[in-house]
């Protein structure tokens, strides 16, 4: 019983003790966070576990310090002491209880003994002492009656004293004495036993382990458990002192030795991004005295790029000062990557949604527009309608592209296996392209003899890829040819190519391909030769990431598994789509297949597109188990090559089962070349038909203008290539729109638009042509940006630009654009500048096109710093039919006048930075001296002033009217204004009447 009691107590104590082993702040109301089983029950389990104690590194001195100084440890110590005392007290209590029990027993025994003695004395008294005389007469008194009863009562320990001797005989008493002696002996014996037991218990107590030992055992167990748990936890636990030097660290993935860590700070241990941040964070926690969590991304040499979630908790001394931090870090890199991926996806979805809504809007507008078509429209309305329709087209195309891409990416897209004739697909794609071709390009196809007549594959997708690549090639080629090369390559080709690709690092293939290409001259013919002869060298275009190549391999396996039959042979078809176009700069190659990527903003502006076409092509090719690569040389051309595995269709059944594709093609075949044996034709060529009246856009053209579409004469090839660059009107807007557009797309809405416009407004074109000596084509892109396209007819006598351009095809394309832009500025400066003024976009250029040059709207510059005045003046000018350009001080005014021609300047006098008087003096000084030296002296930077590169619109013959705007009450008098070179002045506040007078006076030739 005693032992049991001890056991109970131990158990109770066990549970009570352990929570105190853990820092108090980790304990919460819900339950104890740290519980250990009773030792003994599970000893074996822990023994089986190997506990490696290496990872944790401890600075023991510091630990001692901590134990003696930190608040937490002192409370823990106190608890231990208290508990030990408690245990001691309990042991004492137990012993006392034991002693008490024994005492009680002894007392009982003594009491019995006394009783017995008493009894007997009483008996003696009664029977011996009570010697009353019994008279003979009293014979009747029954003494027996009383005595036996007494005798019966005196039972000791429930044992009846059995004495067979007759009562009150000597024998009786002897026996009785003996009996009692025996009882006494037994009692003494019992006492002995009890005493022995007591001794034993005391001994046991002494034998029991000392509290320190016991506690350390518990500690050890807790430690073991901690190790057991931490063994596989990807965490770092550490303690750092006040200077943030490590004093303890547990790291599951130790990469440093103890001496490298202990006593050092984060910054001293490793370097890289994030290290400083984490140290700062720890310091912050220490200063604030509150625990905190943060996610920190490290980029260190030690363990690469990893994101850690770090929990830092300050440690306080007894007096409440911070003496360090405990910190725990966990690697959450994967989670962060996932999270970011989710965010990206969400963003993409949002973008898609936005685009869909945009489409809905556009469709809605278009619907309205279509209904309005029946009514008579004037020129401007028709232009607006065109803008709407073309924007709709672009958005629709963008959405289709996105849908395609997301289908492929999400794995929803299923490939279909149908029979098709590769020759005919190639031919048909070219034919379709030729039908809508607007340039003098030769489209040609070469199909090698060994290409099977019929193969099995997803013909729709293959056609989509081809169409995409071809239209892309056409878009970027201004002269020469675009073609398809189709050929069978051995199956191991794929492997060989892979090897080649992996052998060459991501940077090298470009050099290789360019060097290969550089051996050739740039004429289209040799380019053609090169593509057919040296294609093995041209491979090495980097894949756009490991992910896709893995995906590609996987999808290929899948494809093979799905479609592989033992008796079927698989051929690898290799298709090159080559062109002699502008080529792709080397630096643009790595991003070429990425979504929404175009070679440059300039390309996007010039060529339009969504930026998804090539990404779709690549994804589709890879989905089919092939791969798509590109090789290109700037200004010479590009070749896109894809290799696809295709099963060869068994020869027998193709005649029985001609599918839609074949019959569809057969129609075309019949029209195009009915005589040739279509199955074996190896070369075909298409020349463009007449421009502007054929192709996919015909329907819309008809829809829009039932009138006869005029035939616009073709220009010479090099003229077209040199001049078809568009001139952006507004740089800001076009830059914004650049991201929308792409180097490739199946249809080019911009071209459609230009076509529509040229057909809709032939009179405008002709008119403009006759006036300026050029054909002008208006271009409208998706953002409503109005572009003007110049086509010089071949008869243009000033065609220096064009011939120079054609000679310099080796020169960078950018330069060509630049010169053209300048050219455009020369001829329609007003169009250029009005694009910049607010609100005038769209309407002004159209009027500038229609009006003769002498009636171009006058350009007025308002120099004014007061917002209210600007608003009022602008609004008044608007009502007077003028749009004006506004700058806010004299300095800006001088700059503005330097680069543009103005007909009138309205100049405030009092302005910050540079006042109107000085600005006027500077402008007049230029008019007189022909240089901006005075302006330079005044601190206007030379870059703006480089007068030989910038055309100057000021000359001494033409005095620019500058009108001062003065407030009567102010010091600036009219005389002062005139003295500084101003022509006149308008007193403020300006009114309609004053403005009108002024304009009439200074813009006499302009129509007001």
């Amino acid at each position, binding site marked *: 019983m005693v032992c049991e009691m001890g056991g109970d107590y131990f158990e109770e104590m066990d549970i009570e003790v352990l929570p105190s082993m853990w820092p108090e702040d980790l304990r919460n109301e819900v339950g104890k966070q740290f519980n250990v089983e009773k030792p003994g029950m599970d000893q074996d389990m822990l023994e089986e576990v190997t506990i490696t104690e290496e990872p944790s590194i401890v600075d023991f001195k510091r630990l001692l310090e901590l134990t003696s100084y930190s608040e937490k440890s002192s409370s823990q110590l106190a608890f231990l002491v208290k508990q030990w005392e408690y245990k001691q007290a309990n042991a004492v209590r137990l012993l006392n209880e034991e002693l008490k029990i024994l005492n009680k027993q002894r007392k009982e025994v003594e009491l019995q003994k006394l009783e017995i003695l008493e009894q007997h004395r009483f008996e003696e008294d009664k029977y011996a002492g009570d010697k009353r005389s019994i008279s003979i007469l009293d014979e009747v008194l029954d003494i027996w009656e009383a005595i036996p009863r007494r005798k019966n009562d005196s039972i000791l320990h429930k044992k009846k004293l059995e004495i067979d001797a007759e009562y009150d005989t000597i024998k009786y008493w002897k026996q009785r004495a003996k009996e009692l002696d025996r009882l006494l002996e037994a009692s003494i014996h019992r006492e002995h036993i009890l005493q022995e037991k007591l001794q034993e218990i005391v001994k046991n107590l002494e034998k029991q382990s000392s509290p320190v030992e016991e506690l350390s055992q518990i500690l050890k167990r807790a430690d073991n458990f901690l190790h057991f748990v931490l063994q596989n936890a990807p965490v770092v636990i550490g303690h750092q002192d006040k200077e943030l030097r490590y004093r303890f660290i547990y790291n599951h993935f130790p990469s440093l030795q103890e001496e490298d860590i202990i006593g050092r700070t984060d910054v001293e241990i490793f370097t890289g991004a994030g290290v400083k941040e984490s140290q700062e964070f720890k310091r912050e926690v220490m200063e604030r005295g509150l625990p905190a969590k943060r996610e920190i991304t490290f980029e260190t040499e030690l363990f690469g790029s990893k994101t850690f979630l770090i929990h830092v908790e300050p440690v306080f001394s007894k007096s409440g000062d911070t003496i360090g931090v405990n910190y725990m870090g966990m690697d959450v890199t994967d989670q962060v990557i996932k999270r970011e991926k989710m965010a990206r996806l969400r963003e993409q979805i949002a973008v898609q949604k936005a685009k869909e809504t945009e489409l809905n809007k556009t469709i809605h507008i278009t619907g309205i527009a279509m209904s309005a078509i029946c009514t008579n429209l004037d020129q401007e309305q028709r232009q607006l309608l065109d803008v709407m329709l073309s924007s709709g087209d672009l958005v629709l195309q963008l959405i289709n592209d996105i849908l395609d891409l997301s289908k492929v990416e999400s794995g929803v897209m299923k490939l279909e296996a149908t029979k098709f004739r590769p020759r005919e697909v190639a031919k048909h794609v070219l034919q379709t392209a030729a039908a809508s071709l607007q340039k003098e390009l030769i489209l040609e196809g070469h199909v090698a003899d060994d290409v099977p007549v019929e193969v099995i594959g997803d013909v729709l997708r293959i056609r989509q890829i081809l169409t995409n690549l071809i239209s892309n090639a056409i878009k970027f080629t201004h002269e020469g040819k675009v073609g398809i090369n189709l050929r069978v390559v051995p199956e191991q080709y794929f492997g060989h190519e892979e090897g080649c690709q992996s052998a060459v690092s991501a940077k090298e293939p470009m050099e290789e391909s360019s060097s290969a290409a550089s051996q050739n001259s740039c004429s289209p013919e040799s380019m053609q030769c090169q593509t057919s002869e040296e294609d093995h060298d041209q491979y090495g275009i980097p894949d756009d990431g490991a992910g896709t190549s893995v995906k590609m391999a996987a999808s290929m396996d899948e494809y093979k598994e799905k479609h592989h039959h033992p008796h079927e042979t698989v051929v690898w078809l290799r298709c090159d789509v080559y062109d002699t176009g502008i080529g792709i700069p080397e630096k643009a190659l790595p991003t070429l297949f990425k979504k929404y990527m175009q070679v440059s903003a300039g390309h996007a502006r010039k060529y339009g597109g969504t930026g998804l076409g090539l990404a779709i092509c690549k994804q589709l090719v890879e989905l089919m188990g092939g791969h798509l690569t590109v090789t290109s040389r700037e200004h010479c051309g590009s070749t896109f090559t894809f290799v696809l595995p295709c099963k060869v269709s068994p020869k027998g059944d193709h005649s029985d089962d001609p599918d839609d594709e074949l019959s569809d093609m057969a129609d075309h075949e019949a029209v195009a070349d009915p005589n040739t044996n279509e199955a074996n034709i190896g070369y075909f060529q298409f020349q463009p038909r007449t421009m502007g009246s054929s192709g996919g856009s015909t329907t819309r053209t008809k829809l829009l203008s039932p009138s006869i579409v005029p035939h616009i004469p073709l220009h010479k090839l090099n003229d077209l290539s040199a001049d078809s660059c568009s001139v952006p009107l507004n740089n800001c807007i076009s830059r914004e729109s650049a991201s929308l557009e792409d180097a490739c797309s199946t249809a080019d809405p911009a071209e459609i638009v230009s076509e529509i416009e040229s057909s809709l407004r032939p009179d405008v074109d002709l008119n403009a042509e006759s006036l300026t000596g050029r054909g002008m084509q208006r271009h409208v892109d998706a953002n409503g940006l109005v572009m003007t396209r110049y086509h010089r007819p071949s008869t243009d006598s000033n065609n220096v630009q064009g011939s120079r351009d054609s000679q310099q095809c080796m020169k960078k394309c950018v330069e060509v654009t630049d010169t053209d832009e300048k050219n455009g500025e020369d001829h329609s400066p007003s169009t250029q500048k009005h694009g910049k003024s607010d609100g005038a976009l769209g309407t002004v250029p159209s009027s500038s096109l229609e009006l003769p040059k002498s009636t171009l709207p006058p350009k007025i510059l308002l120099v004014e*710093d*007061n917002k*209210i005045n600007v*608003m*009022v003046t602008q*609004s008044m000018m608007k009502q007077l039919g003028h749009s004006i350009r506004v700058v806010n001080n004299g300095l800006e005014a001088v700059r503005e006048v330097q680069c543009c021609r103005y007909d009138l300047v309205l100049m405030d006098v009092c302005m910050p930075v540079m006042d109107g008087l000085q600005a006027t003096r500077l402008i007049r000084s230029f008019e007189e001296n022909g240089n901006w030296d005075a302006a330079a002296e005044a601190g206007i930077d030379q870059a703006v002033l480089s007068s030989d590169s910038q055309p100057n619109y000021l000359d001494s013959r033409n005095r620019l009217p500058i009108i001062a705007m003065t*407030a009567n009450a*102010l010091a600036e008098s009219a005389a002062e204004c005139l003295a500084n070179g101003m022509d006149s002045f308008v007193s403020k*506040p300006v*009114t309609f009447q004053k403005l009108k007078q002024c304009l009439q006076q200074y813009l006499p030739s302009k129509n007001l």
Partner: protein
Amino acid sequence: MLGLGADRLRADMNRLLALLFHQGVLDEQFLQLQQLQDETSPNFVSEVVSIYFRESEKLLRNLRALLLERESSDYKKMGIHLNQFMGSSSSIGAKRVRNVCVAFRAASEQNNRAGCLRSLELLEHEYCYLKNKLHELFHIEQQRVMASGVRYPMLD
């Protein structure tokens, strides 16, 4: 709300305008402003005036801050601010504000601190008066526009 008060509201507006003209708070430049308001910019006046309010409050704050720099009030800077204030006030036809500005500027040119402070007080007072009245005017106009927008189907 029933569209019956449109005429009454218009009369109210005219009365208020007449009062402001009579008091010299506004001048004919304000009418110019109203002429600029057409269907292409239906809220032109209130837009301009609200920008005016915003700018003016900034200027008033700056002026007060400049004046309260006890040691050396920057009178030149004050002059620039006052020019601005004067320019915009005259542009919207706030005659009295503009006149106070002129006086203020004269005081600032003479480095007359007391005069400046007096002018500032006056300027703030005038500005507040103008602002309240114009707000009232726009409020009536808003109601009028709403009322005149109400159309009833014609019964034949």
